Structures are given as structure tokens and as C-alpha cells.
């Protein structure tokens, strides 16, 4: 029996030191592995239905028989600056898995990873070239005339523009998650403040790089909360390195965070100039391929999810749209949490997903 086990706390035996040495070495090895390897993410079985350029439409394999499923299919539209895997992070903690288990026929639009040849892609293309084709394919495959659409972050921006420009395409329900739509307040959030500076010129960035490099987007997002993202996240991992469930969750999230992609140059230029700086969507002056985007024409049932502690899309950027849309059935749902946390954090399964399901289930048959 060692001295410490005899109750003489503070005295280490040689045996204890060796054990601590081994444990520390194991932890360091594990820490290094978690930082430098990828976890298995996006594992829910799915089938590829359609492709165009880099974009892909998938259908997740249903787990419930047809008669137990909702009639209206659900299309997920993620942002163009990240991979959509965060919607299906890991088995047992996946929004996609949750919705399938609750009887939805779930489809995912993955915008893909843009290459140098995609530098001229704009929101015009996403909204009026890609998304209508995806909807056409979705309706053709399902045989349904109506569908629901869930847009997250910039995916919500594209979804909102599409819903306003094509109100007769069969969109019954529109769910917006942390939607950056209103840029009236130039001091709300770091991004608005940074890009509103007269010296910040997106044209020069795009002239230099062609596309907006994923590394710059990632660095910008991390600098919004530098200590939490650059230090706190890793300390959190180290503190919990012997807790397998916390480690698994951290590894999956870090895998998604590390999987950075560029944004097409023209889309980035448009985002900064027409949305962030000129606020055209909310001002009613936005024109997409010659068509004016009027939010009043958006008639789909609307569920607007706002993260109260969102530092990427501050709540004020998502709120005003509710007064401008033409929807009769509209609801704002506020969740405590951050931009990603409300959908992929530990509390998402209790605080966000059930509310989305409840609202959507009542409108999906």
C-alpha cells in the first residue's frame, strides 16, 4: 500500500509518479491525435439523387414506413461557407437522424467545395439557378407538390430570397436558423463592424485570391471570440480528456470546424457589398437577375429560430424580417445559445430540435 493511500496526502511514491507519467503521456498522445485526426461525421445513410457542378442533392434513407411518415418532404439548405456535416454530426447526436426518426423525408442540398473555376458564382446563381433545379428534382422524386425548407445561416439567406422570388413553387414551410438578413446596425457583431470600414475592400481580396479563402473566413470567425476559440476550446478538451463522451463530442465538432472551404469570390463580394454594407434585402432594393426581391411576396409558413448569444449572426439581424414578410403563419423562436450550439451543442436535442419538430409536424401533413 502506498503512502498516499495510507492517508498521507501530498507524499508521492515512486509508483505514483510513474503512474502519473504514463497517464500524462497517454493524455498528451490522445490530445495530439484529437487535434490532428478527423472523427467520423455525417454517417446517416443517404443516397445521391442529383448533381450540378459541385452541388449535390441527397436523400436520407427513411427509417419509418411510408404510412408513418409526414407527407411533406423537408429540404435542408446549409451555408455556402462551411460543410453541411454539422447537421448530421455523429450517431446519437444528429439533427438529421432526429428528424428521420420523427417521420420526415429528409433531403440535403450540399453546395460542395468551390474551386477556382467557381469564382464567378453569385447568390443569383444559388437562388435562381441551383435551388429551383433542386426543388424541381425533389418534387419529381417525391411526387409531392409541396415541400418544407430549412435554411441555416447563409443558407437561410438564400432560402429567404428564393421564397420571396418563387412563392408559387410549392414551398409550404420555411424554417430559418440564425438568418443574417438585416444589416441596419453596423455595430451589431464583429463582422458588420469589420466589413463596414471604408478601408475594407472585398474587391481587393477577390482580385488577390479569386475565391475568399476558407482560412480567412475561419480566422475571422475565430477572432470574434478569440480566447474561447483559440485557447478555451483546447483547455476544455484537456480538462475533459478522460471523459469519453465529452472527447467524442469535441472531436466531432473539431472535425467539422477544421473542414474549412472557400467562398466563391463573386458571392463574397456580393455578400459584403449588397448585404452587409448596403442592406439591400431589407431596404427592398435587392435585384437578383433583374428581379426585385420583395419580402412581402414570401407567403410560406415561417418559423424563425434566433440564437440569443449568437456572435456571428446577432439576433437583430434576424428579427426585422418578421415584419416584412407576407406570411400569415409566422413565429419567432428564441433559443439560449450560440450560432452553432443551438443546433449541434449538447442542449440542442432538448432545447431546439423538439420545437422545430413540433412546429413542422403540425404543418407537414
Amino acid at each position, binding site marked *: 500500500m502506498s503512502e498516499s493511500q495510507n492517508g498521507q496526502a501530498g507524499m508521492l511514491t515512486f509508483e505514483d509518479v510513474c503512474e502519473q507519467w504514463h497517464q500524462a503521456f497517454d493524455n498528451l498522445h490522445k490530445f495530439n491525435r484529437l487535434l490532428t485526426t478527423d472523427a467520423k461525421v455525417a454517417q446517416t445513410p443517404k443516397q445521391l439523387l442529383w448533381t*450540378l457542378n459541385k452541388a449535390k442533392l441527397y436523400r436520407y434513407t427513411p427509417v419509418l414506413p411510408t404510412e408513418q411518415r409526414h407527407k411533406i418532404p423537408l429540404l435542408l439548405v446549409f451555408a455556402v461557407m462551411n460543410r453541411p456535416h454539422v447537421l448530421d454530426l455523429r450517431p446519437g447526436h444528429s439533427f438529421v437522424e432526429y428528424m428521420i426518426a420523427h417521420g420526415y423525408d429528409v433531403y440535403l442540398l450540399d453546395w460542395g467545395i468551390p474551386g477556382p473555376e467557381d469564382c464567378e458564382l453569385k447568390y443569383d446563381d444559388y437562388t435562381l439557378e441551383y435551388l429551383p*433545379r433542386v426543388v424541381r428534382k425533389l418534387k419529381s422524386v417525391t411526387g409531392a407538390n409541396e415541400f418544407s425548407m430549412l435554411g441555416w445561416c447563409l443558407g437561410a439567406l438564400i432560402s429567404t430570397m428564393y421564397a420571396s422570388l418563387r412563392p408559387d413553387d410549392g414551398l409550404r414551410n420555411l424554417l430559418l436558423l440564425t438568418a443574417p438578413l438585416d444589416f441596419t446596425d453596423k455595430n451589431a457583431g464583429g463582422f458588420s463592424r469589420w466589413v*463596414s470600414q471604408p478601408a475594407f475592400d472585398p474587391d481587393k481580396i477577390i482580385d488577390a485570391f479569386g475565391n475568399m479563402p476558407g482560412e480567412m473566413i475561419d480566422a475571422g470567425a475565430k*477572432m470574434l*471570440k478569440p480566447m474561447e476559440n483559440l485557447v478555451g476550446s483546447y483547455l476544455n478538451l484537456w480538462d475533459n480528456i478522460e471523459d469519453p463522451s465529452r472527447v467524442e463530442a469535441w472531436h466531432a465538432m473539431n472535425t467539422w470546424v477544421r473542414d474549412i472551404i472557400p467562398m466563391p469570390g463573386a458571392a463574397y463580394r456580393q455578400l459584403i457589398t449588397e448585404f452587409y454594407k448596403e442592406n439591400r434585402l431589407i431596404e427592398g432594393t435587392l435585384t437578383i437577375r433583374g428581379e426585385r426581391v420583395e419580402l412581402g411576396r414570401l407567403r410560406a409558413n415561417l418559423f424563425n429560430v434566433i440564437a440569443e448569444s449568437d456572435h456571428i449572426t446577432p439576433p437583430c439581424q434576424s428579427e426585422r424580417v418578421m415584419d416584412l414578410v407576407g406570411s400569415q403563419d409566422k413565429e419567432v423562436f428564441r433559443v439560449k445559445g450560440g450560432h452553432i450550439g443551438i443546433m449541434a451543442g449538447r442542449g440542442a436535442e432538448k432545447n431546439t430540435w423538439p420545437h422545430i419538430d413540433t412546429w413542422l409536424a403540425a404543418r407537414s401533413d
Partner: protein
Amino acid sequence: MSEKHEAMNIFDPTGMLKSMRDTGMEHWSKMMTEFVHSDAYAEANAEMLNVWLTTSSPFRKAMETAVDQSLSAMNIASRDDFMRLADRLTNIEMRLDDLDAKLDAWMRQQGTQHQG
């Protein structure tokens, strides 16, 4: 074992400094967040980026021109050539997608007629 020696694990420096770290972390976090959300930071950041992009632009353009001329002289396709080709392929994909949709619609129509 590890529980008993948690307070004095000599191979866990972050553990030994944990209390000090936790006290300082919140303070640092608040201070840094306030700093990056200040107008001074935004202005300095934009200016630095602007200066870097402006000063590097002539060198970058000279390099691009030299590479393009070299590739052209050797009859090798440049990045612009590949980009134009990719653009044409995407246009062809779109036409095929339209044809596919028309075929789908026609087949559904035929199916409905047969059932009728």
C-alpha cells in the same frame, strides 16, 4: 489514485495552474472580445489588410502575367483556360438537367395516361 493526487499532479501543468487559469480566463476573454469588437481594431484590421493587398498586387500581377506568357509559349493550358472549360461543362450539365427533368415529366405523364 488520480482523484487523490489531482491537486498535485506534476505531469499536468494546466491542472496545477487551473485555478489561476480559470480566474484569469474570464477576464481575458471579456477583454479580448471587447478589443476585437472595437472601432479601433476594425479600422486597424481593415487598414492592414488594405495595405498588404495593395502593396502585393503589382508583384502578384507580374507573376501571373509571367506564368501565363510562359504557359502560352509552351502551348500549355493556363488556369483561365481550365476555368473557361469548367464553365462550359457546367452549362452542358444544366442543359442535361433540363432534359432529364423534361424526360421525368414526360414519363410521369405517360404513366398517368396508362393508368387512366
